[in-house]
């Protein structure tokens, strides 16, 4: 099928991988205007989250912007060179983590041991974990994943939805809609409490891992 330029709204309607295919086609067709537009839309779509992830680990704003640009270029290059596995967004996340790891300098904090909040429902947090279980993880997201696996299904869902940005009330409603057989319904204050306890559970694991 022949190449055809698209307007900005049609380009924006494309998923990342399709947008990239259009970008590639524009490049091959010598359509520099379409190439720029496709790059602009892709950069606009993805730059903010990549930049924010880099800023979490790098203090210098200008360096973070430069690294963001390099990550986007790395991802495009991997696509052009056929090195990518999976979707563009997933690849971008992997490349971002890899580039951050290159730049990351440890910034250890001397802190007091965490004080446990609440009591009486320790079973919610599963079996006690040995800190040693986590020392091989240098990636904090891997530690988070492992910590999530220790939760029961309902509490894992609470944490996962909260991390996706769901407001506490919505999270509680969504959980209740799935776990209809549970006698005591989840409330937004339960959600807050679960997140508080998850934070205390996660904290020493992260410290041990880093």
């Amino acid at each position, binding site marked *: 099928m022949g190449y055809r330029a698209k307007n*900005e709204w049609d380009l*924006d309607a494309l998923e*990342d991988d399709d947008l990239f295919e259009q*970008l*590639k086609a524009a*490049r*091959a*067709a*010598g359509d*520099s205007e379409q*190439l*720029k537009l496709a*790059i*602009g839309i892709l*950069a*606009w*779509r993805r*730059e*903010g*989250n990549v*930049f*924010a*992830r880099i*800023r*979490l680990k790098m*203090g210098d704003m*200008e*360096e973070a*912007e*430069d690294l*963001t*640009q*390099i990550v*986007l*270029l790395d991802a*495009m*290059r991997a696509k*052009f*060179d056929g090195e990518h596995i999976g979707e563009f*967004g997933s690849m971008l*996340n992997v490349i971002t983590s890899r580039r951050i790891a290159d730049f990351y300098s440890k910034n250890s*904090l001397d*802190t007091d041991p965490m004080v446990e909040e609440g009591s009486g429902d320790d079973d919610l947090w599963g079996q006690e974990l040995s800190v040693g279980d986590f020392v091989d993880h240098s990636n*904090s*997201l891997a*530690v*988070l994943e492992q910590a999530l696996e220790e939760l029961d299904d309902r509490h894992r869902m609470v944490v996962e939805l*909260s*991390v996706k*940005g769901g*407001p*506490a009330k919505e999270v509680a409603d969504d959980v209740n809609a799935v776990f209809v057989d549970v006698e005591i319904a989840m409330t937004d204050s339960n959600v*807050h409490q679960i997140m*508080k306890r*998850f*934070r205390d559970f*996660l*904290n020493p694991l*992260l410290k041990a891992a*880093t």
Partner: protein
Amino acid sequence: MAGTEHAETLLTAYVAAHQAGDVDPVPFLDRVLAEEREVLVTLIDAYLVQAPGRVWDPTAFNGTPAQRMVEPLTLALAGVSGAWPVVLPSLRNRVRIKRRDLVEKLATGLGYPKTTGVVEEYYHAMEHGDLPAEGVSDKVLRVLGKLLGTDAESLRRDGALFLGGSFKVDHQVFARHPSFPPKLSADADVADSMGMLSDSDSSELSREDEAEIDRLFTEGNV
């Protein structure tokens, strides 16, 4: 700097700010209790890896870092210098060196301090994706690497062209106009008197020096 708020509270606050278009997490990291900083970093990171990208907004796009990336990314994808249009300015920023100073040091490092004007033309072409990367010699990349805090091998890798078929965008490959046209006297003063030289540096430039710089930037390692 450490704050007084808990990580999970600040995650909620960050998500709201992010969804309103404010992506920088640093102000939120400044507000978290010191002992919970890593938790907040991890929770925000977990949110970001699955957060949707922005919906196209041409008005908001103007003047943003995303817009500033378009030109160098296009030059990298469309040009003949691989990733140099992105990588070289980034390295310059990191070592805090102005382009003019870099060019002077590069000319000196190559052993031809009077060729700054010529080196400037070539370096400009490298940052703009106009200079075929395979023509740039290892000597140039070694000196440049030292000045930019990297090494020749990395710069060589960055200069590799993108694959994915031939590129048909009408890209003008850099071709420098020599200060000394063919058949003109080798004497620089003659060229100068004829108005052939472009800058003051060239008044002391010899044809041999210029030819050597041309060779270093265009003939690879022959």
